[in-house]
Structures are given as C-alpha cells and as structure tokens.
C-alpha cells in the first residue's frame, strides 16, 4: 500500500548507565518510513527523542533491535543518512561555501565541479550571495539553511532532523518550515524529524509518532490527511492539532496535572 520502505526500525531498546544505575531510555521502538515521507517524532523533553535519532543515524548502537536503511542494517554513521543537529553543527572556521563542500571533499570530484554542486544547493536554499560569509555572520535561520544545503549536497536517502527549528523565533520558523516543504518536494528526500512543537509536527508531516517517556516508547501513530501546503488557520489543520493536544491532555477539558514536570 505504502511506497517502498526506506527505513525500518524493529524492537529498538537502549539503556544508559549513569553513576552505576542502569536506566532504560528506549524500549521496543518499531516503525517504518516510506520513500518520500516526512515523519515527525513528537514527545516531551527527555523522553528519548534524540537518543532514538542517534540510533537511526548509526551514531549509537541499540542494545536490542535493528535499524535497516534500504534493507541494509545500519552499523555506523554514513552518507546515506545525514543528521541535522539542533545547533546546526556548522564549522565556524569555514565559509558558508566551505561548509557545504565539506561532505563533497570525500568524493573524487574536481574542485570546480565540487564548488558548482555546492553552489547549486546554496542557491536552492536562497543563500547564493552568502557563499563567502562565515556562519557567525548569519542569523540562526540562515545557518539552519546552510546546514540543510550541506546535508542535501551529498544527496542522502534519508534526512534526520533533531528539533531543527527550536532555536529560531516563531516567524523565522514558519518560513523555514515552508522552505523545507518546498525543497523536499523538489528533492524527494525522505525526512524524519524530532520535535516537541505540536504545530510543527502537524504542519510538516505525513505521519506523527507520539512518544511517551520512562522508558521512551511510541504510544500512538497519527496520520495527517490534510494536503500540503497546509494553512495554519485552516479547520483540517486545527482538527489534527486538537487531537494531539487531547492526547497529551493539554486542552482545558481535562486540566493538566499541576506540578508534574
């Protein structure tokens, strides 16, 4: 029914040992992501979202379970599957162009071709004219765009994004979300993003995975039927949003337990 499966996580568990105490952080997480999908993982702080993303990207090994990308088990980080970090992970001593070229230096490309390819992706995120600037000279939103261009330049099968827009203000965030949708449409990249922002999850994704904590599990999966591009004020959007709020008991109907953070 769904398109070809890009990522398949089965029975992922992860424990951390801290000061001699072993605590389960993730327990039996399984899900699949199809070609060209955008999936959001939504959950409270500390529920294990980043840990899950690190397992998917191969940055850490699960204690149990496996991750497969295009059927191949993941044993370490690879260029197939690029992670975008919350604070962008741009190298401050390189120019914007140098940053985008980073991922291409590995390939046997002549310098001119490498530069051209990097410029193509910079153009795509609208930062052509900033190629010579250093990251510190850019606003947070621009930096996130550079990181996106750098990731796309190696043409990965899968993009992992860890709270990609949490550090920019609401207005910029809205713009970046729109851009991400446009670029994803053009590049047909598969994206898994982690967020604690309900609106973001609903606005961007085809499916939302709601995570519970202690240990982290996927509690519910919610498909978002509305067609993209969506209208943040539209009734369909608001309906899904309300469903999520209710799932997390955040509407007036059932008052939030007061001191449970």
């Amino acid at each position, binding site marked *: 029914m769904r398109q070809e499966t890009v990522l398949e996580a089965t029975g992922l568990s992860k424990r951390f040992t801290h000061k001699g105490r072993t605590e389960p952080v993730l327990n039996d997480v399984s899900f699949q992501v199809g070609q060209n999908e955008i999936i959001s993982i939504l959950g409270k702080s500390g529920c294990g979202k980043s840990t899950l993303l690190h397992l998917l990207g191969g940055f850490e090994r699960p204690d149990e379970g496996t991750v497969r990308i295009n059927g191949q088990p993941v044993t370490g*980080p690879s260029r197939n599957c*690029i992670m975008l*970090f919350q604070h962008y*992970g741009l*190298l401050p*001593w390189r120019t914007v162009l140098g940053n985008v070229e*980073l991922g291409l230096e*590995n390939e046997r490309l002549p310098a001119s071709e490498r530069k051209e390819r990097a410029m193509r992706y910079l153009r795509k995120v609208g930062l052509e004219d900033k190629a010579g600037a250093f*990251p510190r000279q850019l606003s947070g939103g621009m930096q996130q765009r550079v990181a996106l261009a750098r990731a796309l330049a190696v043409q990965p099968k899968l993009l992992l994004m860890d709270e990609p827009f949490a550090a920019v203000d609401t207005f910029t965030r809205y713009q970046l979300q729109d851009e991400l949708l446009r670029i994803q449409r053009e590049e047909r990249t598969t994206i898994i993003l982690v967020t604690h922002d309900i609106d973001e999850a609903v606005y961007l994704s085809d499916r939302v995975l709601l995570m519970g904590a202690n240990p982290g599990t996927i509690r519910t999966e919610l498909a978002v039927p509305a067609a993209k591009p969506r209208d943040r004020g539209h009734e369909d959007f608001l309906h899904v949003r309300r469903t999520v709020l209710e799932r997390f008991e955040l509407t007036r109907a059932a008052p939030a337990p007061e001191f449970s953070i």
Partner: protein
Amino acid sequence: MRPLSKTAATAFALLLLVAAWQAVVQIGHYDRSLLPSPLHVAQGIVELARSGVLFEDLQVSLLRFAAGYFSASVCAILLGLTLGRIRPLWTLVDPIVQVLRPVSPIAWSPFIVLWFGIGNAPAIVIIFLAAFFPVLLSTVKAVRSVDATYLKVAQNFELPPLRLLTRIVFPSAFPQIAHGLHLAIGTSWIFLVSGEMVGSQSGLGFLIVDSRNVLRLDLVMAGIVLIGVFGLLLDRTVGLLERWVGRQWGMEK
C-alpha cells in the same frame, strides 16, 4: 583612537613604575651599587647600546627563544593532537608529564649539559621544556573538548581519520591552542635567564648573570628592564594573534 589611548595608558603605567622605583631608592637611601636608580640603569642601557652589546645580546636571545619556543610549539601541538584523541594513551602520559613538569630547569642542568653541551643548545632546550608542557597540556585539553557535534558531522560525512584530524579536530581546537601558545610565551620567556646561565657567552640572560657576578647591579637591572619590556612586547604580539584567531573563529563578535 582606541589603540592610541591604550598605548598612552601603557606608557603612563610604565612611567608610574619607574617613579615608584625612584621613590624606593630615595626613601631607602640604598647605595648605588646595591640598588641602582632608574637614571643609573638608563645610563647602563645607553652604555650597553653604545658598545653594541645590547643589540647583540638581544638578537641572540630572541633567536634562541624563537628556536626553543617554535620547536616546542610544533612538537607539543602534534603530540597533543595525538594524545588528545587517544584517551587511554593520555591516561598513561599525563602522570609522566605532571611529574616532569614541576622540575626546575636549574635542577635539570647537569643532565642538560651532559646531553646537549654548552652554549646555545642548553638555552634552547630549557626554553623548549618551559614552553612544551603548557602547550601540550592546553592542546590535549583543547582536543578533548572539541564539540562532539563536529565529530559527529565528520563521521556522518565519512571523513577518513587523518582528514578528521586536519580538517575538524585541529581547526576546532585551534582557538584554545592559541590561548595555550599565548600563556606559554610568558612562562617560557622567564626561563631565558636560567637557560643562558649554562655556558652561554651572550644574550640577555647571560648579561644578567654575568653582571650579577661582577656586581654591576645597574646592568642586572638593565637586563631586567629589557627582559620585562620584551616580555611585554612578546605577550602583546601573541595576544593580538590570539584575538585575531578568536575573531576569525567566531568566538567573539
């Protein structure tokens, strides 16, 4: 206007220092040969400059210092990059460094003479030792505090190990290494005098030791003044470099 006013402040501060010194001499009624006054020391410096000794000593000291300091920096940075990346190795090397570091060059000098002879070599070796440890320690610290995100990015783009070191670890650690280089220039310049005690026949340190032995305390003081002033200049130069690195690396706005 800012740098100008800073230079003015420096000049004023040094003037204050000289005034305080003159005051001590006058209040204490010290004999000229026990505590020379600024004027006498100035005469001493002029005397040294006239005879050409000053310039010669300065040049030879700066050359020795440069040889010791730069070779120490290069070795310490290369070693530090390696040790900082390989944690178990550093666990072993760290105690060795900590045991060797606090031993004064004066104590080492019999062995330094044995291995390196007399003249230029011991001075360079002693300055090398004095600069090596601080730079090594700060490089290791810098490498170990490289932002984990950068390392993950490098893994993600499948950078090979050597390129990881040259393209990610080194530049990322560089601002802190530069700070270490700045600290080390001060601490190693101190050891110029110790270094030039071991059979050197020239240099600022030799000037001080020799003048001390013939009880020309005015020339000792002249040497102190020169070492102090050149220490300040070296510090300021490397400080500028450090600031430039900081700006370039986006540490400050």
